[in-house]
């Protein structure tokens, strides 16, 4: 597959997704909250493109409406995640010494604690909302990106052009912003795509545990968790959601790969 085509496919899907979320109130969809107990778990028909769920609601419509909180959470958590990673990663790498050790210690600890306890605690105390989910997911995931950014900043620090700038007497902060920064950008983009993948996977995992937005207005993960109970009898519930999630993850993958290959 030609490189350009795969990149475009990924971007196209993501763009369509975002557009759909924006235009949602104006799209000609069935009411996602309208129960129809007489027609539950029906397969795809003309009026219900991907069938109905256990309470007779139109799955296609629910899926589209669920995209909003999902995209918000993924975008928000990814941004927060990378922000934290850049801050702590560059701090650790540029200052070195005890700060570096402290950040590494914190990272190690984050690996070691089973996140379920942490998440149950936070969710129990703060309740579930888009904001708390963004903070919680970013809070779990920031360590991965931090380590990578730290490693990259370290590498850049010892790069020739930086040494030369230091030799010329430019202040550290200037170097950081003007030299290291732009070189970090491609890595950041790559990380963004991978982080988005992790965030989406985490969010669906949380929904599986019942710790995401509740019915009747769930995220994709919530819809998936709902549908999984009916998987063997009415596969289209979980199936359509799984397909949408998979396509989105695949698009992000393609995007990430594309950025990677332009990095090499």
């Amino acid at each position, binding site marked *: 597959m030609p490189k350009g085509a795969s990149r475009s496919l990924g971007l196209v899907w993501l763009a369509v997704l975002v557009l759909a979320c924006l235009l949602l109130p104006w799209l000609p969809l069935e009411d996602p909250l309208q129960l129809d107990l007489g027609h539950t778990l029906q397969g795809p028909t003309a009026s219900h493109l991907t069938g109905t769920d256990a309470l007779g609601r139109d799955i296609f419509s629910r899926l589209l409406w669920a995209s909003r909180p999902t995209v918000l959470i993924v975008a928000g958590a990814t941004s927060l995640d990378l922000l934290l990673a850049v801050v702590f990663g560059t701090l650790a790498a540029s200052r070195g010494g005890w700060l570096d050790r402290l950040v590494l210690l914190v990272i190690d600890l984050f690996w070691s604690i089973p996140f379920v306890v942490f998440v*149950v605690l936070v969710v129990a105390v703060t309740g579930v909302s888009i904001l708390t989910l963004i903070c919680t997911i970013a809070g779990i995931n920031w360590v991965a990106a931090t380590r990578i950014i730290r490693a990259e900043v370290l590498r850049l620090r010892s790069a020739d052009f930086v040494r030369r700038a230091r030799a010329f007497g430019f202040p550290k902060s200037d170097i950081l912003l003007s030299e290291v920064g732009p070189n970090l950008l491609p890595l950041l983009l790559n990380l963004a795509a991978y982080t988005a993948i992790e965030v989406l996977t985490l969010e669906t995992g949380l929904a599986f545990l019942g710790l995401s937005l509740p019915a009747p207005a769930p995220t994709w993960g919530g819809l998936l968790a709902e549908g999984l109970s009916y998987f063997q009898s009415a596969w289209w519930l979980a199936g359509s959601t799984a397909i949408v999630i998979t396509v989105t993850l695949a698009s992000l993958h393609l995007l990430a790969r594309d950025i990677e290959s332009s990095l090499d």
Partner: protein
Amino acid sequence: MTILLSNRRLFLVCLVLLSVGCSRNTQPPSTGPQLSLMYNTEEQATEKTVTAQVIQSQLKEKGISVTLEPVTNAVFYDRIAKADYQAALALWYVDYDDPEGFLTDFYSKAGFRMAKYSNPTYDDLYERGLFAKTEKEKLQRFHEATALVDRQLPWIPLYSNSELFVLRKGTEGFVSNAYQYYDYRGVQKSDLRVATDVEVQSLDPALAYDLASKHIVTQSYEGLIALAPDGQLVPMLATDWRIVRDGNQIDFHLRAGVHFQGKWNHALTASDVKSSFERMLRVNSPYAYIFDQVEGVPAFKEKKAKEVSGFVASAPGVFSIRLSRPFPTMMEWLLAPAAYIVPRETSDKFDFTKESVGTGPFVLKSWDGVQARFDANGNYWAQAQQSHPLPRTLSLRVMKDVNTQFAAFRQGELDILNIPLALFNEFLEADGSVRPSSEYSYREVKLNNLKFITFNMQKAPYGRDEALRRRVSESLNRSAMVKQLFKGRAREATSIVPPEMFRTNR
């Protein structure tokens, strides 16, 4: 690279627009009453979620807007304990055939109360019922108490559901009752595999009160009496019993020729019964309250006495319970698994997961946390009464996931399936009738349980306004729930106590 960056910029712009767009509330503000309904996502998740959403939709049509609050198990009970909720969707079930089980929540002196309802008239009726001298008077008082609560609606009863079993060929001898006691003695299949869908907490009969633990414990252990499918008390380890001394004492004649399984395989005697009951009190069983009316129990609980004077093992074959006052409910309460009999040598710390030492039909061979394996008890006392031998082996497995249950049944790895709600449409037609099959048959067992909405009576507006609660109750369409959600495998509940419990043939 620049193209990518510019795409990214476009992406970011879209993101900003998206956040703005999404934050717009597309739903108009509601003018009617608001209700926030809390439910536990770790107990019967599918059924609760679906019921909650149906309730939300039904009440929306009648102008009441409902916000759903699914929470985890620990949070659920914590918020109820702290009275930090408005309304909650819950399930209530009992282990014995007594209306008292449904009436405790409203008694102001009970331990854990959901509704925090407080009414001296009710308390009076409840106490007079509990300590009535005769069964008839007891039922009368309880009936009045029920009527009072049904009128004031601290709980809104919704429905009582049924269990629907699919039975493979050969397992038709399976028996279960309205209180979810499962009896496999009559099954004519030599290797029986069954499942439960919740985690097992303990294999100690004194500590087994949740469904899965009960399921396992009732295969190896037995009590003095048992419950027949028609709701009658029938002899088990006691062949007959008499209430004497004006209701202050119950004498039990113990069955002869009953032997315990395992290393203490001596015959059952009255001292085993006495020590089982005392052990149950010592290990802090959740059922410890059932013996509160027995003479000498308060002193025993406070460690002031070494034994309970009210448990009398006068002769090896005769066991008596001396009560501090007449207490007809005592007989019902003895049905609880905590009152099952273990050998007197069983220590408080005995490890019930390694072996079973009861009198029951199946002997525990192994327990690995997920699966219990049993062998038939070769020495089982009731064997002579059975026309067929017991299943040679029994395997009981925890299968929480619906898909695993279904896959196992389809593949023939499971012999009896208790059909979960999510699989109803696999086995039932749209009108509720079962899909006939040559490989298996069906059994529906009506349960005497209750699905209900409880209000927090300490919080306004619902806790203070009976008319408002009644409006919620009358806005619900129970018939639709029962017919469409459960395909008819449930009964509408109009009272907090299932009417079957007030029947007269006791």
